[in-house]
């Protein structure tokens, strides 16, 4: 059963993408996308864990994927030639040659046929994130792209391609997380690269194409590194079975080289410093693209790969380096986010920062840390997807990404603004999921003082930029006078579902955490320096217990719910009473945020946030941060190769 569902989860998006490419009617396309997404979501929920399966499909799928690989690389090579981008040409040519050599002479000789799929708690979580969060983003894209194209005034709709690529992307991600065959993993990995290129460059402006090419070459480099890693791993143990490799890979000195390559590939995919440029550039794309890239697909592929191979790293110097590199990204990206007044860039830096934290989890390398990393992936996907959809909708309305222009958004778009504020709160406030995950990381990583300092600083920065963003959206709005804006059903429902998810999903966290731990613990053999006994016991009802502390989840959640009700009642009561005007030194006018200036004219009281641009500006720091990050990567490399 699991193998059939797995095949469906991978094949159906491909077929749907093909169908979308062929339909020009928007009603048909909507129907197609809705049914596909619903189907995928249902399948992902039906899927159950199974150690290794799908042997009987190998005969059909393996040649298909090998052929697909050549096609994919050829397309990328062609793109490189067409846009005269020597780097892409070189990188893809290198991949093509290496892959052909591997496929025809190296792999052909070895023992073939690892089980096609391996579904454990990790991949199960990822599949659900991809299908449900990613699916909701696809649904949200339907009305969004209509408005987007109206705005661009295109002669011929380009939506068929767009939705084809979106669906293809979901399929590629499903394949990537479900497969157990490393060469197939490479195929899906490269497929997400190509999809991201097509999505980023979708608007076909010069800027979009340039940014898309940046993404293509950086991820092309990642692909090459992954291929080298596969070659290295295969030459060590003569197998491509991922489950097996996780157990056997690693060692000392040069034997660690493939794992280093693997991590570097994951770093490029997840846009870690110093490769953040492509993700920041990806912001030119229509919002559904950014939402998809940031929350449920693409960048999550990199961290997933690192978490998957975390058992192989555990206890090595390489892992120590990974902790520091991830922690550094966590702090540095958060600090850069503080200096940003472009809302979408704040979101982008925050994604990079959180992914750094997840990489660090992989480096800490205890089952508890890896499980915390998975929880972070899940909760980050939901909250960040929600935020992206909101900010994108706001951007469509105010035609700017500047936070200062979005000031007081709640007066124009109260629903969108309130959901954004809620989403931002779910990222920083207990008892919600992101904070729970962060708490687990704090507890798991406190032994490393440098990392602990990074955690403390990074978390504080995170609180600062989110509260500032949320506060700016609320600023000065006459919320009472504002009417809820009209939204198409397909905009409202995905937002509503994601918002409920962001608030309520944390209730399932203890169970999920337990399941992840149970799945992970056997992978970390006796080699981990993990204290004996259960690291995590389901203690009293609703309390998450770790070796170091306790998180009273149920009581905090109940308390938060009660307080929210009470505070809402207080707000309602206060709004029913007398309403005052804001304090403007007595010089108020009829307009809420204007004071009476010279000649009795109203002047807008302008306050801007402290961005500390001279202190934390992107221009000033990017180069140094990149240098430091590159230094840390070298350190990681050195740590990995140290005998």
């Amino acid at each position: 059963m699991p193998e059939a569902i797995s095949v469906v989860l991978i094949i159906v998006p491909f077929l749907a993408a093909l169908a979308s490419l062929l339909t020009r009617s928007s009603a048909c396309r909507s129907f197609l996308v809705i049914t596909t997404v619903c189907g995928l979501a249902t399948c992902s929920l039906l899927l159950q864990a199974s150690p290794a399966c799908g042997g009987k499909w190998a005969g059909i799928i393996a040649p298909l994927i090998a052929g697909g690989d050549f096609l994919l690389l050829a397309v990328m090579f062609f793109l490189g030639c067409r846009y005269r981008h020597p780097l892409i040409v070189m990188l893809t040519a290198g991949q093509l040659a290496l892959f052909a050599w591997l496929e025809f002479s190296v792999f052909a000789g070895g023992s073939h046929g690892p089980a096609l799929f391996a579904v454990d708690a990790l991949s199960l979580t990822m599949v659900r994130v991809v299908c449900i969060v990613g699916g909701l983003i696809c649904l949200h894209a339907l009305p969004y792209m209509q408005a987007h194209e109206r705005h661009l005034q295109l002669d011929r709709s380009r939506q068929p391609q767009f939705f084809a690529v979106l669906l293809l992307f979901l399929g590629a991600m499903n394949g990537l997380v479900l497969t157990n065959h490393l060469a197939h993993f490479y195929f899906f990995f490269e497929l997400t690269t190509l999809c991201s290129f097509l999505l980023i460059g979708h608007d076909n402006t010069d800027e979009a194409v340039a940014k898309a090419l940046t993404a293509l070459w950086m991820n092309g480099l990642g692909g090459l590194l992954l291929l080298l890693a596969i070659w290295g791993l295969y030459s060590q143990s003569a197998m491509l079975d991922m489950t097996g490799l996780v157990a056997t890979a690693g060692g000392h000195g040069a034997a660690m080289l493939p794992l280093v390559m693997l991590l570097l590939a994951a770093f490029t995919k997840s846009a870690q410093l110093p490769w953040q440029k492509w993700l920041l550039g990806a912001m030119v794309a229509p919002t559904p693209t950014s939402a998809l890239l940031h929350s449920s697909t693409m960048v999550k592929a990199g961290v997933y790969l690192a978490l998957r191979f975390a058992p192989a790293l555990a206890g090595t110097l390489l892992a120590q380096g990974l902790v520091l590199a991830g922690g550094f990204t966590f702090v540095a990206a958060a600090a850069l986010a503080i200096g940003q007044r472009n809302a979408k860039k704040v979101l982008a830096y925050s994604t990079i920062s959180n992914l750094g934290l997840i990489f660090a989890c992989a480096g800490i390398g205890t089952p508890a840390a890896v499980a915390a990393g998975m929880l972070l992936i899940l909760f980050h996907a939901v909250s960040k997807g929600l935020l992206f959809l909101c900010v994108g909708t706001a951007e469509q309305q105010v035609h700017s990404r500047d936070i200062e222009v979005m000031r007081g958004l709640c007066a124009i778009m109260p629903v969108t603004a309130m959901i954004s504020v809620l989403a931002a709160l779910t990222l920083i406030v207990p008892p919600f999921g992101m904070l729970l995950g962060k708490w687990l990381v704090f507890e798991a990583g406190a032994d490393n003082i440098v990392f602990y300092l990074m955690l403390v600083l990074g978390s504080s920065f995170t609180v600062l930029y989110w509260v500032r963003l949320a506060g700016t959206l609320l600023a000065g709005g006459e919320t009472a006078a504002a009417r809820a804006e009209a939204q198409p059903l397909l905009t409202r429902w995905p937002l509503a579902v994601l918002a409920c998810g962001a608030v309520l999903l944390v209730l399932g966290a203890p169970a999920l955490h337990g399941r992840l731990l149970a799945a992970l613990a056997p992978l970390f053999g006796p080699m981990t320096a993990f204290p004996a006994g259960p690291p995590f016991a389901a203690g009293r009802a609703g309390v998450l217990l770790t070796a170091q502390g306790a998180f009273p989840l149920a009581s905090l959640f109940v308390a938060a719910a009660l307080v929210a009700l009470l505070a809402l009642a207080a707000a309602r009561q206060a709004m029913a009473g007398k309403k005052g005007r804001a304090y403007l030194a007595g010089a108020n006018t009829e307009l809420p945020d204007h004071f009476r200036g010279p000649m009795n004219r109203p002047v807008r009281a302008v306050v801007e946030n402290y961005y500390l641009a001279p202190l934390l500006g992107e221009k000033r720091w990017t180069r140094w941060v990149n240098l430091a990050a590159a230094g840390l990567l070298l350190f990681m490399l050195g740590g990995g190769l140290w005998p």
Partner: protein
Amino acid sequence: MAVMRTAVIALAVLWAATLLGGLLSGLDRRLTARLQARRGPPLTQPFWDVIKLLAKERVVTNPWQAFSPVATLAAAATALVLFVCQGDLLVILFVHATGGVFLVLGAMASPSPYSQTGGQRELWQMLCCETLLFLFAGALYLTTGSFRVSGVLALPEPLLDRLPLLFLAFLFALTVKMRKSPFDLAGSHHAHQELVRGVYTEYAGPHLGLLEIAHWLEVMLYLAICSLFWATNVAAMILLPLAAFGAVIVLDNVAARLTWRWMLGRGWAAVFAAAALNLFWLKG
């Protein structure tokens, strides 16, 4: 039954903390007056202020001004209850920070530039004091192997011996939290001329009253954390926070206010580095 007992304990603790926090606030005003060669108000003055505020008219410019005080007070109360239950210090600090988040949101929701600037500064102040407390939590873990408050109470020796620099850092954080000079940029009692009352400007009447109570509870939490520095005997657990409290008031009266550049660039950076050094020393 266990739930009932916890509820009773929680209520008792909150009641006592409110009374004590109010009295301490009165003591603060009286000490300050004495340092300025005045007599000052009676010790009970803060209670009269709060009762008066609670009985005033409710006027708001937007719903967040009513929402936030409730959330802030609830966060402060929850954090204190968790502390008394000897819970996880990290969770306590997270919950405590939530109160600040809502305070700032309410302040930023008003179009008043005074309130908004106050909110921004409050965020930077939160950054300053929360980070230092998290470092203390880290020190707690390094010494006891657990983030639980209960771990400290079982230690044979006072933590202060091993955490002198962190104690200095804690004093810095306490000064910020009590809104005292030189680190009182966001909403100090003396900021009327520059920022009106900064982050508190737009909260009026009952809402201000609730925030005042929340502030007492927050200061009580800080003093409770302070007592952990010498948790081996009861007298020290009372005297050390009182001494810290007195030191902050003296500092308030001899120091002029700094700008945020100074607070972040020199003050906090130096103190954070010292506290971090203390952590390495603890481990090494």
